């Protein structure tokens, strides 16, 4: 048993992190969040992601892909979540090999979620699922335009979509924890950094605990590819991301309630991703039935 990242996996993680840091930094994020016309999908960035193998990661080399597995895809999506990278990343990744141009990032693919939500409908070239009758929603996530299709009988969700979404949540949770810690070291009140107060320390410690438990669950689910374990990992990752962003907001105090701080962007995306996965209740019932 060697349940740790291999050297290749570390390199991949580092590579994606550097790519995103160079190509989608904080300034780019804020431009999107603060832009007058709402978020725009950066087609050039999309193609660069395609060229880097982000979408073709799991396609066999014989089909022009990178030939890697779920664990590597999870690491890449964790980085996307950490950087708060916008766009229908999961749907396009899943379409690689099935929809022409998805693997290279030339075609942007979105999908209708079982909840009826359709992210990035106007920007996408291809929609998977039935988006007939979808109407625009004033999206709570400033970085994700949303449509909502009429409710349909719930369909089984692709476990890989659930897993990659969980990986994004994991990255977001880790980022929120780091952001809170950085702020708690810099911000002073009562003559000391607020991070020296135990009340703040304990908030941060619990953020890390939730993140590391979710990490073990998400990585293990990537290794086993067991659908039930994937859904359980999704539950823990949703919690780590949402609670993490909430606690980060709390550590930021008044600044956390402003548009200017990035905290709310993580929280709102985490809310959206939670909605896209199976509900907590359904997962709990599934795991109760397995007892």
């Amino acid at each position, binding site marked *: 048993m060697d349940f740790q990242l291999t050297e290749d996996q570390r390199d991949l993680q580092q590579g994606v992190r550097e790519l995103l840091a160079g190509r989608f930094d904080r300034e780019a994020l804020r431009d999107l969040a603060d832009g007058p016309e709402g978020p725009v999908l950066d087609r050039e960035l999309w193609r660069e992601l395609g060229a880097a193998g982000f979408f073709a990661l799991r396609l066999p080399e014989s089909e022009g892909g990178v030939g890697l597995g779920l664990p590597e895809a999870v690491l890449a999506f964790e980085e996307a979540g950490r950087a708060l990278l916008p766009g229908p990343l999961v749907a396009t990744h899943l379409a690689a090999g099935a929809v022409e141009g998805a693997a290279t990032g030339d075609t942007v693919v979105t999908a209708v979620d079982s909840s009826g939500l359709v992210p990035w409908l106007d920007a996408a070239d291809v929609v998977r699922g039935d988006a007939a009758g979808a109407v625009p929603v004033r999206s709570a996530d400033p970085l994700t335009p949303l449509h909502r299709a009429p409710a349909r009988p719930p369909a089984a969700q692709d476990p890989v979509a659930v897993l990659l979404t969980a990986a994004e949540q994991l990255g977001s949770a880790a980022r929120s924890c780091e952001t809170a810690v950085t702020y708690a070291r810099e911000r002073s009140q009562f003559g000391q950094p607020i991070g020296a107060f*135990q009340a703040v320390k304990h908030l941060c*410690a619990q953020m890390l605990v939730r993140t590391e438990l979710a990490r*073990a669950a998400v990585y293990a689910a990537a290794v086993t590819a067991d659908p039930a374990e994937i859904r*359980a990992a999704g539950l823990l990752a949703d919690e780590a991301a949402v609670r993490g962003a909430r606690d980060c907001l709390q550590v930021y105090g008044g600044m956390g309630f402003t548009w200017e701080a990035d905290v709310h962007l993580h929280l709102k995306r985490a809310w959206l991703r939670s909605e896209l996965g199976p509900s907590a209740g359904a997962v709990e019932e599934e795991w109760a039935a397995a*007892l």
Partner: protein
Amino acid sequence: MDLTYTEEEEEFRAGLRAWLADVLPQLPPRPDPTDWPGRRAYDLGWQRRLYDAGYAGLHWPVDAGGRGATPTQHLIYLEETERAGAPYVGANFVGLLHAGPTIAAEGTAEQRARWLPPILRGDEAWCQGFSEPDAGSDLAALRTRAVRDGDHYVVTGSKIWTSHAEVADWCELLVRTTPVSEDVPKHRGISWLALPMDAPGVTVRPLRTLAGSTEFAEMFLDEVRVPVGNRVGDENDGWRVTMVTLSFERGTAFVGEVVACRRTLGALAAEARKNGRWDDPVLRRRLGRLNVEFNALWRLTQWNVSEAQRTGGVPGTGGSVFKLRYSHARQELYDTAAEVLGAGALDLDHEWVLDRLSSLSYTIAAGTSQIQQNIVAERILGLPKGR
């Protein structure tokens, strides 16, 4: 990332399983929990069987008489012994998991030869004299004094929360050999001594826990003479000596318990299905959530053990992260058990009720959750120490 076990690891597992299947039916009946001499004899007898079969000190270094097993083999050992319902480490806990490894790491050749073999053979039991009435979370504030008198220390003070003190032969004792002063911070004046429990001046008074049992004791030391040769490590270096051993923690501390909790969870579901409470969706979801939780805790264990294996057993701070979540989950498990039992939750004859009571210690013992959160925040996240 790989969750499969190597051929060698599977062979180890198969050999252990076969031995357990053979030896467990031969064990004598378990003693009554209140029968301390009986418990000691039972626990040491089990240790002797492990020794004879070559499983004693599995994770100890080979030159200390152990097997030098990898963290993964240790995980397999703990997983399989728990699954098979083998006896717990019991009265051998401190000897095998703390005092022994400390002596192995820091003791002289003579000290190792004197104390290690009897621990491995199940001849001698150890207890731990660290905490004091005024030194709990702030352990380094301990005040039990040791004054040098020729080739002896004369030790006076009191210790508390000393498990198995009534039946131990030896106590790993932290004492203050140099008083705290402007030049000597509290961590610097501490020494580590092996105290023979039958020395004149040692008084043990059992403490009754809220579960009604006498799991631990207070220990009073009145001018107890301890040979200087019983000091492991240098004088005033006892804090470091003790911490070196805490680093023997390799992510395996709660392996058996997580296995046991998952089994209990299955039993809770079976009981709920039988008594009709399964129809309550709130309870059902709570059980499902615990199943998710303990599965993830098992994955986190595998993660931490793999990390220890890579670093060669160097201490990870992952232990604090795990303990914080696990201790909470365990309490949640037994609170849920009470819901499943309904009125039966007040019946002390039900083992879950006693387990619920003992679960209350989990967020306190071995570092309270508050101290663990400080450790995570300061040592992992790098937040500043507060006033």
